[in-house]
């Protein structure tokens, strides 16, 4: 089974570091052209440079995913330069570790704006083109926090935003399916990224007790699932919420 994305144009949000960078590099290694939206242009530039060093094509846009107009401009520009967006990967997100009663309205607004409205914005802007071409793959990075109401890192607000992403994904799968568009979400469990590095040794061990595979995931584990869901090998998979969590959830 060989993953060939030659000629496919991909937009990844939040690809300056961590999971998003791994997704971008993995898709690029299989031939895809990668457009990146991120506020961290320095990190995104490093991702782009790495793609270009291996002979790939990449563009970086500094934009706030929570602002629809900015997102629409970016998507119009990618479509004008490359002709299409075939694959959209929504990975941009922020966390908050605070207990619910210590959060502020501003934090609620900010987390919802980036994690949930950000996904709405890119889908809203990219779907008309996909529907017109009758081809498109949308992969949203949600979280098991969206099923459990937070827990390990995310708090209640974070979990709520990710639950929204899950429902949004299902709705798009339902509405865009007749046009040959697949929309799926991935729910990572705890992954070895910067988010985890602040975790005490004691906490890490406590978390691992509840993980059947007794290990944390790597960004590459998530990137591999994105690769699969974005490929035509997963052509009959849509509206699926896929956990990549070492077996923590074991739900539907």
């Amino acid at each position, binding site marked *: 089974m060989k993953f060939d994305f030659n000629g496919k144009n991909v937009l990844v949000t939040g690809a300056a570091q961590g999971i998003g960078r791994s997704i971008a590099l993995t898709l690029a290694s299989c*031939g895809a052209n990668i457009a990146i939206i991120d506020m961290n242009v320095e990190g995104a530039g490093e991702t782009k440079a790495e793609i270009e060093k291996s002979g790939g094509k990449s563009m970086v846009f500094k934009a706030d995913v929570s602002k629809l107009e900015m997102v629409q401009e970016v998507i119009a520009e990618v479509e004008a330069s490359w002709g299409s967006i075939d694959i959209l990967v929504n990975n941009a997100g922020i966390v908050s570790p605070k207990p619910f009663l210590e959060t502020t309205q501003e934090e609620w607004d900010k987390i919802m704006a980036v994690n949930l409205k950000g996904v709405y914005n890119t889908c809203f802007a990219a779907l008309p083109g996909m529907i017109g071409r009758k081809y498109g793959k949308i992969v949203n990075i949600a979280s098991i926090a969206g099923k459990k109401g937070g827990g390990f890192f995310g708090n209640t607000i974070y979990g709520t935003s990710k639950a929204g992403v899950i429902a949004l994904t299902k709705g798009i799968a339902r509405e865009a399916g007749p046009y040959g568009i697949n929309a799926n979400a991935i729910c990572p469990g705890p992954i070895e990224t910067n988010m985890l590095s602040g975790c005490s040794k004691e906490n890490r061990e406590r978390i691992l007790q509840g993980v059947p595979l007794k290990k944390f995931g790597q960004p590459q584990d998530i990137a591999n699932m994105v690769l699969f869901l974005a490929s035509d090998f997963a052509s009959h*998979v849509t509206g699926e919420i896929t956990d990549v969590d070492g077996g923590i959830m074991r739900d539907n």
Partner: protein
Amino acid sequence: MNGPAVIDLSGKIVVVTGASRGIGRAIVESFCESGATCVILDILEEAGRQTAMELNAQGKKVDFLPLDVSDHSDVKKAFTEIFSKYGRVDVLVNDAGVTLPTPFAECDENDWERVIGINLKGCFNTCNAVFPEMIKNGSGKIINIASIAGKLGGGFRGTAIYAASKAGVIGLTKGLAREGGPSGINANAVCPGVISTVMGNSIPEEQKKLIIEGTPLKRYGEPREIADVVVFLASDMAGHVTGEIFDVDGGIVRD
């Protein structure tokens, strides 16, 4: 950055039950294309031999053993034979299954014993035969073909008993994921929606229309679309995926 992603299963020993035709056969073909050696276990002796012969003629490494998966001691014997011939089993795919279109009010105990015996106990039997070896090896992949009927309580083709058997397969898979995880074993299930096979095509025409209406992708799935998901789940690319119940249904369930 690494090279392009390729799933190469050369040297892997893959056992697939119910693989003489339909989804099971497509699973074997997909594994063979990734270089694996496959053993087909099927009660349909003639069809099984025929499939193995056809695939061998294409240069694929496929073996066949006739087997009723519902018979615990026969399953044990078959796996003893497989272990002695191939040394190990890297991947076990449980696809063998029967449907039952009978409304529940008309079902009797024999229906229950037959469907549960093949669909659920068959799965237990094969898993029971490979699990100790996989634990010893510190690795192994189990992929069980359940059904969206196991989530919806049947409906399209399966009825209550069929649904119960497939819900059982889902529970078994999660238990194996939980218990096998610390030993490096991944256990996942795939829930096909309606697939173009002898089973899927036997649905009455007007019911087919209703099914398509409720399917966002507005079509049946193809056996190959199940097979490719199974091969991905059996690969190291899905090394952190376990206890996952993966719908391949064109968006019907969305749970």
